[in-house]
């Protein structure tokens, strides 16, 4: 039975682990982010799939991150990610710059159990030079010389996601966000928070099943209504623009960030235990 609560879910993330997180547009578990900050996890290696946003900025600001790998870290319409920007400038964290399709390619290699995936582009760039782990080979299938880049497989220890719907067997429905399927396939464990829990199996519905990550891959699920807020969740609710604009402004200073995070944790002080206690309606 993978249904659990946020504290137990977050406790499965250990110091120094490699954690894959979605971009801000689809499926970020801000509820689990609070639990990780409270737990005081350290030295995480975050992978933004393929970008990262508020979640990464908060984890960086809270001192949970050693290394981030992403094709971009930003608050999107709300501007630069302030704690990320400061941490890179001060050298507090390391970065592995990427490009969106390279992150996807690495995860596809990971889910297939092969050592790398080839991709076009990148040749001649400083981006490629900054990644000694990305290798250029001569395409062995071509008649003429054809340099091409190999992206090593990405196998995160954890995929951490938020979804609209789970069931009691631990199947989860991701809707249009099919990159979450690839993340779960490539990761060794998948930790999920969900808006709702269905009392019937999601695999029984042929309309839902093609967008389901089966429980085969799912390590634990915790109920977390509005668990992506203040970011939006596709098909469910939009971003809380006032909160994001406020964060983008105040988190530019260390003190401002500390005050913001304290208030945010306090405002959600009771969210940890309600998962298994709350009555569930499908």
């Amino acid at each position, binding site marked *: 039975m993978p249904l659990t609560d946020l504290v137990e879910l977050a406790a499965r993330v250990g110091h120094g682990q490699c954690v894959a997180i979605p*971009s801000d*547009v*689809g499926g970020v578990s801000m509820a689990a982010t609070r639990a990780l900050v409270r737990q005081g996890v350290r030295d995480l290696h975050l992978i933004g*799939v*393929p*970008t990262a946003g508020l979640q990464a900025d908060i984890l960086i600001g809270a001192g949970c991150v050693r290394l981030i790998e*992403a*094709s*971009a*870290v*930003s608050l*999107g*319409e709300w501007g*630069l*990610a302030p704690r*990320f*920007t400061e941490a*890179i*400038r001060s*050298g507090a964290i390391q970065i592995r*710059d*990427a*490009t*969106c*399709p*390279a992150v*996807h390619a690495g995860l*596809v290699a990971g889910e297939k159990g092969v050592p790398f995936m080839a*991709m*076009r*582009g*990148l*040749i*001649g*760039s*400083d*981006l*490629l030079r*900054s990644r000694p782990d990305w290798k250029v080979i001569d395409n062995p299938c071509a008649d*003429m*010389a*054809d*340099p*091409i880049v190999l992206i090593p497989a990405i196998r995160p220890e954890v995929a951490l996601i938020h979804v609209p719907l789970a069931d009691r067997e631990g199947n989860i429905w991701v809707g*249009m*966000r*099919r*990159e*979450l*399927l*690839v993340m779960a396939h490539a990761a060794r464990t998948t930790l999920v928070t969900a808006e709702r829990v269905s009392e019937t199996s999601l695999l029984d519905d042929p309309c839902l099943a093609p967008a389901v990550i089966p429980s085969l891959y799912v390590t634990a699920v915790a109920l977390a209504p509005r668990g992506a807020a203040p970011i939006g969740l596709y098909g469910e609710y939009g971003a809380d623009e006032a909160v994001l604009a406020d964060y983008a402004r105040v988190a530019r200073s260390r003190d401002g960030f500390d005050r913001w995070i304290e208030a945010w944790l306090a405002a959600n002080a009771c969210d940890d235990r309600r998962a298994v206690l709350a009555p569930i309606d499908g």
Partner: protein
Amino acid sequence: MAEALSSAFLAHAMSGLMAGSNTVGIGANSPIPAAAALLAQRHDPGMRVTILGSPRHNPYTNGGAELFDFAAEGRLETFVLGALQIDGDANLNLVSVGDYQAPKVRYPGSFGSGLLYYVVPRVIVFREDHSARALVERVDFISATGSSPPGVHRPGGPAWLLTGKAIFRFDRSRARFVLTSLHPGVSEEEVRANTGFVFECDVVDAVEPASAVLAPSSRVEAPRIAVTPSPARRELDWLAGPIADELSDLYPAFAVRLRAAAGDLR
């Protein structure tokens, strides 16, 4: 026109650069390019436009990777990329200013440029801020190169550079940007003073000034550069009406500005 060109003017200018494409892709956080693509589509209803993040204009069903797969296969003809620094060789920097390891300024990152700039045949580079800070002699970090040596798979690359002052075309044979039109009220001198790289200009076929007959000495005039066309009344109506409406769920604040900007131009 005022110092800051309106969103409607730039969207119209960009829509002209998209004309004739069968497929146009717009990335995240790109309100002006999104308006441009929808305007281009008004003129050419057969054009397929995909806008990342838009519920209505994002037909991809295979997750975040599909746009890149679509482009890598050669199916995407036009895409718009922004950059923090752009140089005359069309190299793009979306990463940092100064030393990469200890940057003076750190920006979000390269996004999809590491692939899209190489495989999309018509990339429009867009930077509203036309300054020597943005348009530099040499970028500090190359997210994606403007051109590639022979033997490197490179079906795509830059075609245009649109800024708040002018339009450059990319000359593939020389691998350099060439100034091709000035926005209304902008002079060549102003563009040179605000551009960190050297460039050549496309000169409009000189029409003999009528006064030349009377005063032959006036033939020694500076070469003339075309002026970027302004939107017609019908196009402003589209931008302020249905296009602003279509973008209001994705870019609500921008839709309000677009209606106002189109109104000002009318």
